[in-house]
């Protein structure tokens, strides 16, 4: 009769997660360094694991953990139908960042997605290839471009780090990336399109919905959710 909650294993996200748990009456001590186990007080039957934020999203998708604290961007990117497979119990008020579409500042004719659609539409005719978008968010990008804005002609170049450098490196024309202050974008002479915010993300407590828990565990999970919902 235990339920599991995973929280980010390092940095500010971990500290803030511990604070959020504390204000919900759950004291977690992270124990020895490099251990992924923790001591939990204030909630019987709760096990708290330390994982990387992206791993937490995957485990939620697979139903391998009951709760996780991670960014909404990762939840929406990792889980195909997040509204069915998981529920956001609470937005925790930290880890704010936006997933945005950014283009080179030098593209003075491109202010909005409609401009980008036009550029993408004639890109092949001019350059013999599709417009390239560097991102680690292929699902969010594709949903935003294809479904929201009807832009079909582009290619995604998967980028697992330093995405903002892709246009200067010549590996992509534009990027979709996460930014909190926008300063990295500015430093790389990129600008966010006026309607180019795909998602306003923050850290969330997310509940996995595998529907395979026994009654006692489900009651525990409900109780944990209640502490945060209040």
């Amino acid at each position, binding site marked *: 009769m235990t339920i599991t909650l995973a929280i980010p294993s390092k940095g500010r996200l971990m500290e803030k997660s511990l604070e959020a748990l504390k204000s919900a009456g759950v004291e977690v001590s992270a124990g020895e360094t490099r251990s992924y186990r923790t001591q939990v007080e204030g909630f019987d039957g709760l096990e708290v694991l330390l994982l990387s934020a992206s791993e937490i999203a995957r485990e939620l998708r697979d139903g391998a953990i009951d709760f996780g604290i991670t960014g909404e961007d990762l939840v929406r990117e990792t889980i195909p139908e997040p509204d069915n497979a998981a529920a956001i119990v609470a937005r925790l008020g930290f880890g704010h960042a936006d997933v945005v579409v950014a283009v080179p*500042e*030098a*593209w003075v*004719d491109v202010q909005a997605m409609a401009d980008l659609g*036009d550029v993408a539409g004639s890109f092949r005719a001019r350059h013999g290839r599709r417009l390239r978008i560097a991102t680690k968010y*292929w699902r969010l990008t594709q949903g935003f471009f294809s479904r929201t804005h009807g832009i079909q002609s582009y290619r995604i170049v998967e980028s697992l780090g330093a995405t903002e450098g892709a246009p200067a*490196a010549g590996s992509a*024309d534009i990027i979709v990336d996460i930014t909190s202050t926008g300063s990295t974008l500015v430093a790389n*002479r990129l600008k966010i399109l006026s309607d180019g915010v795909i998602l306003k993300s923050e850290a969330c407590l997310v509940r996995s919905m595998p529907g395979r828990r026994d009654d006692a565990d489900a009651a525990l999970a409900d109780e944990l959710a209640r502490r945060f919902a209040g």
Partner: protein
Amino acid sequence: MPASDKTIGEALDQLFATRGAAPAETAIILPAEPYLDAAGEALRRRIFLTRGEGGENLCLRPDFTIPVCMRHIAEGADLPRRYSYRGLVFRQRADGPAEFVQAGIEDLGEDNRAMADARAVADALASLETCGIALDGLDVILGDQGLFEAVLRALGLPEGWQRRLIRTFGHDGQLRAALESLSKGPESALEGLAPELLDLARDREEGALTRLIRGRMEEAGLPPHSGRSPGEIAARLIEKVAVAEARLGEGPLQLLENFLAVACPLDEAGERLAEVMGTAGLDLGRAMTAFETRNLALRAANVDLARVTYRAAFGRPIDYYTGLVFEARDKGAEDPLVGGGRYDRLMTILGAGTPIPAVGFSLWIDRIEKVSDCGISA
């Protein structure tokens, strides 16, 4: 009446052979790049992707058109030529099994487009009959992107707008949204544009703009010979400002709406279109001639035009489709039993050295079986 997969399949093979199409064998595991490149990234979540040992993207055959065309290009066979196919395709879909059978014909290199178009429609309908489906139980819908483009030209819409509208053709919601922003003033389109740039664009100072943009690209360390050039950006900015500040009257928009609302039996379409365009004194020129020539060719191929619905707004928002599109559905149903169209831009996208006219259709055998079974038991 053939109803089982086997008998339907054999009957179709026979029909395709009598229509002069030779079977094209294609592999089941294919490079994914041509698909993502031609059809767009939206396909990514609907196909089965995997990676080869060398890191290349591979997929399970999601359709036959692309491998048939690529095979043709690789073999450099003579044109014109008709290929047939029948076999499994694989797609992730919510409403049915992920592997299912498609069959069809791709018609490559026929310069007589009207005749080739008509043949595709006639063969598609004959295929359905061969599968035991009565044509009077079907909705057959036909659209023509060529006419839509001709209307935009005839209305004298700025090129930027023509491109934007053509991009959304076939997607009613997005077309509507584009029309709406077309009817709005310039304010929103130019928001956030620095005054100095706006002035330069208004004065059509292409040289000064190009220099300014080149400076910014250099500062940002953008590679000078890959992607958009300073001149291209300057030219598009000038065009954009001109378009945004040109007031479009109510008239053209209304006319465009009237055109898009046309839906009538194909044998009345010519008259209806002449009516709509004639009120504004506009002539669709060659596109209209091509449309009428195709109708004649359809008649010659024994297609009953009264049974085909022409819908002016019917199209496919994929950029290699260029003209005719058509579909046949069981009356009242949503999913097509057969779909087809002209894709004159695909062959060059796939690497053909010169443009090759191409038209084809694809039958959804699993849906056809369901309908023909119902027909028999009812």
